[in-house]
């Protein structure tokens, strides 16, 4: 039965609303999670005054940013200065559209994929979006007309490009095993305990480290740290534009964590879930819940690593990307190819 | 309709790139206009691959992209090397071997 246009549009809008709501809600509450976990790690309380256990703190922060004076310094190049925060934020939101958050459910007489867009070049689309995200940082650094911003922008762009390479190569191993670029097929091929994390541990290591570097996070946040370069590429930004940079970083983190779960940890698969025993709706809810739980774990991992490890110096960072991760990812490809030829995978 | 319109767009882009190579003096902008021309050619290949249902056009595009990447890298390396000596990215300033 041919679905009507109206039902297709409603389905698409609901999925988009769910994903964007999830990402934006995640962005807001990641600030709370970050500050509380940082407090726990540093043996102190995080924010706990505003609302119960500090849960209204992100709202207070948002209001503060809204009311701050939005200064545009006179020496910046205005078009790119205003465009740059958008250029960082939009690609990460677009990247989260191809990530499947559940198995296809059967509602109203037809199968609905729980994925906003089931592109047949799914993984490549995510790499395309992370490639476009580099421009926001480069343009922010250049348009600020300021030596520190320029250096920060340059360093950050170089870092993003180098680790994009390692990330792409480590994913090639997953693609070889799956045989398709579609993300829902990547998840479906990891049924039971057949997760890619267990069959390709080196690739997982490369991907996780590269994801930390791609999101300008954790030990790789030299371009934006406070002690080295004033504030790197977002020195000249204030109020909501600065908040957009922070939000873009968290949105990138959420997309990266969701991607890790999808590629290596089975996505929405729950090993041992017997489909016959429960109603389809319950199974779907459990699967979506499992996906969210796994993503939340990886977000916690991001925060944990940030407050534990010291920062890399820039040349150490570039050495790690080119001399360590790139050969490791190639090694992973060779091992996977060998295993596939021998029929073990 | 699409297959008669897109080659025309590609021809216009190619001509704009050619004008750019002739007019501009900055070496980097000249390299960018060359990239524009290569993209116009890619668009033509893709249109005819669509019209004739042949994937050979796509393979050609793949190789054109590879060559463009290599050429951009080496060309920009040359621009940087020249800039170090002469502090200028003008192609008119690279005239030591002129008669």
């Amino acid at each position, binding site marked *: 039965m041919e679905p009507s246009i109206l039902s297709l549009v409603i389905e698409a809008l609901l999925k988009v609303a769910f994903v964007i709501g999830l990402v934006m809600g995640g962005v807001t509450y990641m600030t709370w999670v970050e500050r509380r976990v940082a407090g726990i790690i540093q043996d102190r309380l995080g924010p706990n005054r505003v609302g119960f256990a500090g849960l209204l703190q992100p709202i207070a922060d948002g209001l503060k940013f809204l009311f701050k004076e939005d200064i545009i310094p006179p020496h910046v190049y205005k078009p790119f200065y205003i465009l740059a925060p958008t250029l960082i934020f939009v690609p990460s939101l677009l990247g989260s559209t191809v990530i499947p958050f559940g198995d296809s459910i059967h509602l109203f007489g037809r199968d609905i994929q729980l994925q906003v867009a089931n592109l047949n070049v799914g993984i490549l689309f995510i790499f395309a979006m992370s490639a476009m995200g580099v421009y926001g940082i480069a343009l922010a650094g250049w348009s600020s007309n300021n030596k520190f911003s320029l250096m920060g922008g340059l360093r950050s762009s170089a870092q993003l490009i180098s680790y994009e390479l390692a990330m792409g190569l480590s994913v090639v191993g997953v693609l070889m095993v799956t045989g398709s670029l579609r993300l829902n097929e990547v998840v479906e091929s990891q049924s039971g305990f057949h997760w890619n994390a267990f069959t390709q541990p080196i690739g997982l290591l490369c991907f996780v480290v590269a994801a930390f570097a791609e999101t300008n996070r954790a030990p790789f946040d030299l371009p934006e740290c406070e002690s080295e370069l004033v504030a790197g590429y977002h020195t000249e930004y204030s109020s909501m534009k600065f908040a957009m940079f922070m939000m873009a970083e968290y949105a990138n983190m959420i997309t990266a964590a969701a991607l890790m779960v999808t590629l290596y940890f089975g996505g929405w698969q729950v090993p041992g879930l017997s489909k016959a025993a429960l109603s389809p709706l319950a199974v779907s809810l459990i699967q979506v819940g499992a996906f969210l739980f796994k993503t939340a774990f990886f977000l916690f991992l991001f925060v944990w690593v940030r407050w534990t490890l010291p920062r890399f110096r820039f040349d150490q960072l570039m050495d790690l990307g080119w001399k360590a991760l790139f050969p490791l990812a190639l090694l992973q490809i060779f091992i996977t190819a060998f295993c596939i030829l021998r029929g073990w995978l | 309709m699409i297959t008669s319109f897109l080659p025309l767009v590609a021809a*216009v882009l190619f001509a704009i790139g050619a004008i750019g190579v002739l007019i501009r003096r900055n070496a980097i902008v000249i390299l960018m206009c060359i990239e524009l021309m290569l993209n116009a050619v890619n668009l033509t290949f893709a249109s005819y691959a669509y019209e004739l249902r042949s994937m050979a056009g796509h393979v050609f595009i793949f190789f054109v992209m590879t060559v463009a990447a290599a050429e951009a890298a080496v060309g920009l*390396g040359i621009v940087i090397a020249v800039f170090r000596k002469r502090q200028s990215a003008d192609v008119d300033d690279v005239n030591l071997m002129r008669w």
Partner: protein
Amino acid sequence: MLVINLIAFVAIFSALMVVFHRSPMVSVVFLIVNLVCIALFFLFLHAQFLFAIQIIVYAGAIMVLFVFVVMLLNLRKEEELLPGWRVQRALAYLGGPLLVGALWTALWRRGRSSEAFPGSFGSGFGTAEDIGQLLFNDYLFQFEAASVLLVVAMIGAVVLARRKES
């Protein structure tokens, strides 16, 4: 198709801005816009793999290289065209439309026969799998030659841009 016309307009406008804007960084950004437009054309022409590759490689890597060089050389000065170049500029402006005319004549007079399109699309038209089959079976030598070319270019770029240790 209204969308294709709109994208074509944006592509041509951004190409004109690449050529005629005086600041190199703005030219770079407009070229990125142009490359994304071409990628969208690829999407309309059922070339999904090339759409992704165009954005990843061309708009995402080659143009980042251009951005780096413009930032490193800190090219903010806007160039002025010397008056002694008027002849060359006039010839270029005349030659442009002539070139479009010549190209269009060559393409249009391709000998369009009135027969129907040669068959329908194969099921995998434009996917990575089809291109992979062609690259690794029919065009294997060219593929390997392209890899050698990339290695040579990498070495060349590193050698050219290195500072001489005196």
